[in-house]
């Protein structure tokens, strides 16, 4: 049995957010992943981000596919509905859920196998449809749950634990997301929560398709010295191109920012992102430049992290297809069913 209820222990000194909730209220069941798994750090970052945003957990829907990553939603936001669907199909389930009720926050959790192999088609199309969701890939370059086979994001230069070479070039999901029209594209590292938490908060505040590729080492199968998805490698080669401050809607910006090195981005809900450029050649609002930055860094063996690309004015799927602003699952049947008189006129046209 691998479901372990986490005992809920409240300490009077625990910090409370605006909703009067503590971190405990944002936790889920006990993780059953390997000790030291990067995914657990991402789980912790999601909990922290939701806590800090004062997010009512029941207004979040967590949806995943299959794999170690897709088990992770069990371990956070126990007060949210979750849906652990089938392999590679999280995007379609999330799309349908969002069509039914556009008012919830949709947090999709996937892995590199789930997204870059079996689910590549659904990934491409959910980006293209600009679904208003946060799509998190917990990216470890391997199939953990089936014991360490290469995934499609594993670098060509990165052999297996046993030393077998990887013969194929990796799929870069951030580049794909930018090319396919994602409005918010970020890459981060599970070991860098100071970068990751603001990115998650910003992704939640963003209306449109927000993509977060988080390098998340697999301690059991892909954390060896030759791996490019190991803790040591990513720490050594992580090149943050910007530093992000997420400023909630009602808050004032208190720090002075240098116009030349900082970019302010206003989101639909009124919250703002303050981006401090660490790489002066990078403009996060220029898709071509973002692609260039990712490629140039990758060619040097580095991993460009941070908010790589953002489009402040993206329309989401509902805007594009023109659905009602009301949640479709809450419209009374009396409004949906045209009734018998209307049916009589439909019959008349078929005579």
């Amino acid at each position, binding site marked *: 049995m*691998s479901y372990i209820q986490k005992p809920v222990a409240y300490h009077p000194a625990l910090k409370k957010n605006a909703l009067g909730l503590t971190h405990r209220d944002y936790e889920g069941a006990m993780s059953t992943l390997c000790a030291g798994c990067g995914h657990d750090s991402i789980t912790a970052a999601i909990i922290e981000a939701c806590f800090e945003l004062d997010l009512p957990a029941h207004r979040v829907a967590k949806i995943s596919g299959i794999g170690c990553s897709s088990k992770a939603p069990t371990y956070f936001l126990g007060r949210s*509905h979750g*849906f652990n669907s*089938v392999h590679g199909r999280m995007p*379609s389930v999330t799309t349908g859920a969002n069509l039914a009720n556009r008012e919830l926050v949709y947090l999709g959790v996937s892995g590199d196998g789930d997204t870059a192999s079996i689910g590549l088609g*659904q990934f491409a199309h959910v980006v293209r449809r600009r679904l208003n969701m946060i799509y998190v890939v917990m990216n470890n370059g391997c199939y953990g749950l089936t014991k360490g086979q290469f995934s499609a994001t594993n670098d060509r230069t990165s052999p297996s634990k046993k030393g077998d070479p990887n013969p194929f070039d990796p799929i870069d999901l951030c580049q794909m997301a930018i090319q396919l029209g994602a409005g918010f594209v970020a890459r981060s590292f599970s070991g860098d929560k100071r970068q990751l938490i603001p990115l998650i908060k910003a992704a939640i505040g963003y209306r449109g398709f927000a993509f977060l590729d988080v390098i998340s080492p697999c301690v059991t199968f892909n954390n060896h010295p030759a791996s490019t998805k190991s803790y040591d490698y990513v720490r050594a080669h992580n090149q943050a191109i910007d530093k992000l401050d997420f400023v909630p809607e009602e808050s004032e910006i208190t720090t002075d920012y240098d116009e030349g090195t900082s970019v302010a981005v206003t989101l639909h809900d009124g919250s703002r992102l303050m981006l401090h450029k660490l790489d002066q050649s990078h403009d996060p609002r220029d898709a071509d430049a973002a692609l260039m930055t990712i490629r140039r860094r990758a060619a040097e063996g580095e991993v460009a992290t941070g908010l790589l690309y953002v489009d402040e004015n993206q329309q989401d799927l509902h805007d594009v297809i023109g659905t*009602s602003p009301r949640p479709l699952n809450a419209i009374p*049947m009396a409004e949906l*069913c045209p009734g018998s008189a209307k049916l009589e006129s439909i019959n008349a046209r078929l005579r």
Partner: protein
Amino acid sequence: MSGVNDFVCKFATVNGSGSASANTMFAKTVFRMGIPVSPKNIFPSNIQGLPTWYEVRVSEKGYLARRDGIDLMVAMNPQTYREDVAEVVPGGWLLYDSSMPRQWPREDIEVLPIPIAAICARKWSDPRQRQLFKNMVYVGALSALIDMDLDVLKGVVADQLRGKEKLVAANLDAIALGRDYALTHFQCPLPIRLRRAEGARGKIMVTGNRAAALGAIYAGATVCTWYPITPSTSVAEAFEGYVKRLRTDSDGKTLAAVVQAEDELAAIGMAIGAGWNGARAFTATSGPGISLMSEFLGLAYFAEVPVVLFNVQRGGPSTGMPTRTQQSDIMACAYASHGDTKHVLLFPSDPNECFSLGAEAFDLAERLQTPVMVLSDLDIGMNEWMTEPFAWDDARVHDRGKVLDAAGLDKALDWGRYRDMDGDGIAYRTLPGAHPDKGAFFTRGTSHDSFARYTEDGRVNADNLRRIARKFETAAHLVPKPEVLTRDARSRLGVVYFGATQPAVLEALDDLEADGIRVNAMRIKAFPFSPEVKAFCDAHDRVFVVEQNRDAQMRALLMIEAGVDGDKLIAAVNFDGMPLTAAFVRSTIRTYMGPVKVAAE
């Protein structure tokens, strides 16, 4: 036997030549004259240039099944002359375009030559018009030959081309040219002809796919996610059309979302996501789509998510005959997906039932928290059927099933997503966002306990599977009961049928009775089988199971799921892709009975 208001007329044309609208106008005119009519479009999987046929059966008695033996062939396609002429019954007629005159190899039919291309060439200079109006010239000629009511025909043309007045005038010109030619050159009308009648009064003409879409509208469906595939595409397209007409707010925003998915996997995945989140959602597909959707159907079955699927069946296996009809997905749908999986199926017999059962499917899906598949086929889905008008009871309450809202959760003690509180196998579900700290659960395709928690305890998983089986037993009492037609309570002969074969079977029962054989009949409307299904089989010694697939899939399902003795179930299968004829049913039963037995009856 053919004669006034009783004949079959067939149009052999080339697809993409504009014949479809002319043929439709022909059938609609017969219908508006009050005569029962049944057109069948026999078309290629192609857009332009291949042979296509349109068969129209006219039957004052109201027999709507396809009938072999063509009384009047309109042969407009030289590619198929040889087979078209062979189909005409002795004493029948063949109308053809004699602009290029030819000798026909049969003495026993009457040939009606009309220089259609030459007539059009004299009238119109534009090559496209010359081509297009050829179709209306033969309709005009037929109006004289079979005595169509000219005013009714003109009314049909005006309705069909509403808003295109110039086109109406040109079509009427073409009709006049054909009509005048026929009146001048032939003895009009022919012995096979039309006469105003009452059999079609009050009825409507509609395709099953349009009716299914309307059923979804009336059921309150708000999410339609689909992937194009013949012959189901027009379900989603019709739904989208109805959303524009019936579900658009004053601000132009729609009270439904229609999304064309990237494939069938995504189409069903989206519908399941929407169903999970409390919207009434559906997809429409055909055979290959069922194969692709199977994994997701298993998830929805096991995680207990309501979703409706319209399967407009076509010829299989594999890509098969995409533009021909079959009932060959019975097994694939009943047991779609791996593991112990079973699904609720509904079998509409005509467009009227595509509407009524289509709407009911949504109630059943939410009541049972499981996928419900509506199995029609290409014949019902894409052909225009004369059927009873749609009816809706405004007092009807949509059954949204067992859903706990915030107030319900506050009252519920020890709520568990998969706990069977009522003994019917159906547990209470909750929707995301309903309550700040109650009712959240983790929907999963992995083994789970009654609180939706992952478990690897085999006994807990077995208990859950037993409960879902119990739910299926509940389903057997909720789905529509079969329709039983008793011709003779003493008869030991029965026939079981479902779906599009209804007109052929009903006609065959009349013919058999005329032969002195009285057969009782049962039309299955749903799976799992109501108790009445087995009772009917038990009450008869020999039961013919009529179906349109090679392997007698419904017969097998009756044996497996209703426990009917296979020895008494006689397969009557036709799988050539064409709508079934009464002659097939009659001859199958007569052949089985043998000449001696028939005499003895």
